């Protein structure tokens, strides 16, 4: 993706800290900027604070200190419902409503926003096509779908009201490698067309390097560094090097075993 064609800051974290209700400091002194139209990947281990960072954007959590700004406005000062409806949200277990059909799941936000029924139907069809869902699946329930199909519905649902900003929390984390590969490829194609601002959480280095315009590495509630994927492999930072090493270990090991 070409970042120079888009400018401006979509999301900004200023000295953000978050202390959990149990008193544990999850994030401390976080400063970062997400540019409009880029795919900003938050990479880190479980417990590193990447999901917390994501939830601070749509105010599922509120910062204990500091400020989160979306489109220049501090999230603390805006109507939280309007804020969330203007941001697409995809999570790992998808969180599809089990009692809604695929069609109703995708049309959820347009419906609560009061769109006319024909317009919702049109939009659902358009989105199903966009994410590669067969029309015959529209009347199915989530449990009748495969993991990959559910994930597509999750993405379609997040895109329904055409938000400029998309938050994705390990959306492909529970998929098998081949389905994941397919969805990652489609994500890239989709992103070429839509140019959404995406914040993408993952612990998978390969996924981060493949999808990200920039990769932010987090460790123990702090931002280690933000790098473009090509810089990532060359970085001298010990944390980054550790990730790269872990990523390569499997391939190297297989290569070194030779043939019997």
């Amino acid at each position, binding site marked *: 993706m070409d970042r120079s064609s888009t400018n401006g800051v979509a999301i900004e974290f200023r000295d953000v800290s978050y202390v959990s209700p149990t008193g544990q400091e999850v994030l401390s002194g976080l400063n970062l900027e997400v540019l409009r139209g880029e795919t900003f990947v938050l990479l880190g281990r479980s417990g590193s604070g990447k999901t917390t960072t994501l*939830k601070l954007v*749509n105010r599922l959590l509120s910062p204990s200190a500091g400020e989160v700004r979306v489109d220049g406005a501090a999230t603390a000062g805006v109507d939280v419902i309007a804020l969330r409806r*203007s941001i697409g*949200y995809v999570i790992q277990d998808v969180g599809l409503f*089990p009692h809604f059909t695929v069609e109703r799941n995708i049309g959820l*936000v347009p419906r609560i926003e009061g769109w006319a029924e024909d317009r919702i139907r049109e939009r659902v069809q358009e989105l199903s096509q966009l994410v590669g869902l067969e029309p015959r699946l529209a009347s199915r329930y989530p449990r009748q779908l495969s993991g990959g199909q559910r994930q597509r519905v999750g993405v379609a649902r997040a895109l329904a009201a055409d938000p400029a900003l998309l938050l994705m929390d390990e959306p492909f984390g529970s998929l098998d490698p081949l389905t994941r590969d397919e969805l990652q490829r489609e994500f890239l194609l989709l992103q070429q067309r839509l140019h959404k601002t995406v914040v993408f959480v993952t612990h998978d280095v390969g996924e981060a390097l493949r999808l990200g315009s920039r990769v932010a590495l987090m460790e123990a509630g702090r931002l280690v560094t933000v790098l473009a994927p090509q810089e990532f492999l060359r970085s001298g930072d010990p944390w980054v090097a550790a990730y790269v090493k872990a990523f390569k270990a499997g391939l190297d090991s297989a290569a070194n075993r030779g043939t019997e």
Partner: protein
Amino acid sequence: MNIFQFMVQNHDQVLELTLEHLWLVGISTLLAVLIGIPLGVLIAHWPVLNKPVLASANIIQTIPSLALFGFLLPLPWLGERADRLAILALTLYALLPLIRNTYTGIRGVDPAVVEAGRGMGLTDRQLLFQVELPLAVSVILSGVRVAVVISVGLATIAAAIGAGGLGEFIFRGLAMVNNQLILAGAIPAAALALFADTSLGWLEKRLRPR
């Protein structure tokens, strides 16, 4: 004369008492639903209230029914008519299964689903009516079912304070040492309970989220 001949011969009275019985159970269940479900929703979202509310409902449940009818007698307005008293007592007994099942049902909704809904900008109200209650409905209905079955049985005791219902036959039969009279009250009451249990059970299965 066997029991069935007796019931056929006195079908007017059997029918009248059965309808009275249904009225007591129906109204009290309706009231318990109107009070218990909102209370269950409340404690599911405000865990602080959870213990006091459930404990109170539990305590009510442990009061012997005859004693409860007695305790309620001095109440103004309610004490004037036995059926009002009976309905109040039955409502109180039906509260526990309703509150508890509503609470359990809502707490049992997958947190990922609720979080996704919240993240997409559903208001608390929309979350409750479009997500939590629909997903909890079969658990709540099973609470209604338990409440109704308990009420059908308990309502027979309401005859002791003159509230009518099928208990009339039973108490009369006890006083006259007449088993036939007892059965004339007990059989329709048992049938009512079975009918309520199966039909609500069927509904519960139909509404279970797929």
